[in-house]
């Protein structure tokens, strides 16, 4: 059997993960200090874990409805209502296996071969390969440092073609930490109103913002009918391992996504769903406590990196900083590989998040201050040793 030729063409064409390579390199270095993770360091708040344990004790061990527990979907509707002024009933909400599945479902439900998906880069790694898998065409648009890594309405307008089906908006952004402002969203909404383009708004980091208030594009006039809002529990409630996310959107689209979900997933994990009900209802204070800790680290990282000569934009959300490493004279990959080999510090090259990430690296601050301080000491040494090269 020659699987090299048997594997479907679309699967072969999927962009390989740029993170995989670094994972393999770093995995061989048990003593390496990592700033490379895309998940919170805090344990899941105890109330949430307690709710999961209780659900198991009383025997909630069966499938739930395909779209998720009704109580959870109602809770999600209330949550996005109280946080972002949105209004979705439980029929317009689907509970998924992480935000990633919601992204997959939305793209697969909408894209036919040849359809274009506008993807502002750098961005989360799954939009591009999933688009390719469906036979769609990823259209990357660069978010620029001079514009604080925000996508502009003009860039989107210029990228629109009659084949454009989806605009992905992943803000607050992984890996840059950029967030869109009210006026950015309004301008983008203005470009899209009256088109047949659906916004895939990945707002998984919505609750981790600093000094600003998150707004969803779905709340803008005329946008609810053309937006799929993707949210999740992983980042907000530090629940990555629970694999739970959701999508809210227009009824017909959510029904189509549910059709795919029924066939490939059946239903999201039951225990996680019971835990999530408690998360949405009782854990605002826990989230706020974590957010404050991230904020302290964020400020620390920005200051330290700028001090050592790596120009670093002050991120507004998520838990990453995205320093400009061009002053080192190295490419992103080279910088990260050498830093790993020489100083045993693992960070991720910006190019892992799209070509627009060249010249940058992603540093996660989902680590204790002690950990960050040791890592930055090593990065400083690394820069000094390579000065003037």
């Amino acid at each position: 059997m020659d699987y090299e030729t048997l594997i479907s063409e679309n699967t072969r064409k999927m962009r390989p993960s740029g993170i995989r390579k670094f994972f393999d390199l770093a995995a061989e270095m048990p003593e390496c200090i990592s700033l490379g993770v895309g998940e919170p360091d805090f344990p899941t708040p105890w109330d949430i874990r307690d709710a999961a344990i209780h659900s198991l004790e009383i025997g909630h061990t069966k499938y739930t409805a395909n779209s998720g527990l009704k109580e959870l979907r109602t809770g999600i509707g209330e949550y996005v209502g109280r946080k972002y002024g949105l209004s979705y009933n439980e029929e317009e909400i689907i509970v998924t296996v992480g935000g990633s599945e919601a992204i997959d479902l939305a793209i697969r439900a909408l894209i036919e071969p040849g359809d274009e998906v506008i993807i502002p880069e750098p961005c989360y790694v799954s939009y591009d390969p999933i688009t390719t898998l469906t036979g769609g065409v990823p259209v990357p648009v660069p978010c620029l440092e001079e514009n604080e890594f925000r996508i502009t309405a003009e860039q989107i307008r210029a990228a629109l073609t009659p084949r454009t089906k989806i605009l992905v908006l992943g803000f607050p952004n992984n890996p840059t930490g950029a967030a869109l402002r009210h006026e950015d969203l309004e301008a983008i909404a203005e470009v899209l109103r009256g088109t047949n383009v659906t916004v895939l708004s990945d707002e998984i980091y919505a609750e981790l913002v600093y000094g600003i208030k998150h707004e969803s594009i779905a709340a803008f006039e005329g946008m609810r009918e053309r937006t799929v809002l993707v949210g999740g529990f992983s980042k907000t409630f530090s629940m990555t391992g629970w694999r739970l996310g959701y999508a809210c959107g227009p009824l017909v689209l959510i029904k189509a996504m549910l059709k795919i979900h029924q066939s490939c997933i059946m239903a999201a994990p039951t225990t996680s769903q019971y835990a999530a009900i408690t998360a949405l209802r009782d854990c605002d204070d826990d989230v706020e406590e974590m957010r404050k800790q991230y904020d302290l680290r964020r400020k620390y990282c920005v200051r330290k990196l700028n001090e050592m000569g790596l120009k670093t934009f002050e991120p507004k959300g998520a838990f990453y900083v995205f320093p400009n490493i061009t002053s080192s004279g190295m490419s992103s990959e080279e910088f990260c590989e050498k830093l790993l080999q020489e100083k045993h510090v693992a960070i991720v090259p910006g190019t892992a998040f799209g070509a627009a990430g060249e010249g940058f690296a992603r540093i996660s601050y989902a680590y204790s201050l002690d950990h960050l301080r040791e890592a930055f000491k090593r990065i400083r040494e690394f820069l000094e040793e390579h000065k003037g090269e």
Partner: protein
Amino acid sequence: MDTMQLLNLLADDPRATVRDLADILGESEENVEKGMNELEQKKILCGYHTVINWDKTNIEHVDAFIGVSAKPERDTGYDRIAERIAKFPEVASLYLLSGTSEFMVSLNAKTMREVADFVGSKLAPIEGVTSTVTMFVLRKYKVNGVTMDMKEELKDDRMIVSA
């Protein structure tokens, strides 16, 4: 300087040096020192304490909680009685409570005999104290937010690099 931030950092780690704190807060060491001095003077920063599990040492010790019923006095209420109780060095903490007894004393002593002597000859004779209930600590599970001798949570089992 962000005073709340400074307090939070010290609450997490009272051993943090002025240099560490200055580095984390982005302040000069002088400013941090000045800030801490002010907080100490205002009695907002009241001490830098250590949580020790004495059960793991071979030092003899006994801890007890003593509920103390007392009658308030005209003019001073419970304050004068509280001051008298607090003066004894073996009293680790003292609270005025709602409920069945007025005060709760936590006591660090060496032996049960010492606790009994303290109650009998020092605490009960205080004017205004009407009765006491002594409860000996059998085992400590959590002290000042720190769990003791319980199953530790995993420190960090995340993958080294992830999206």
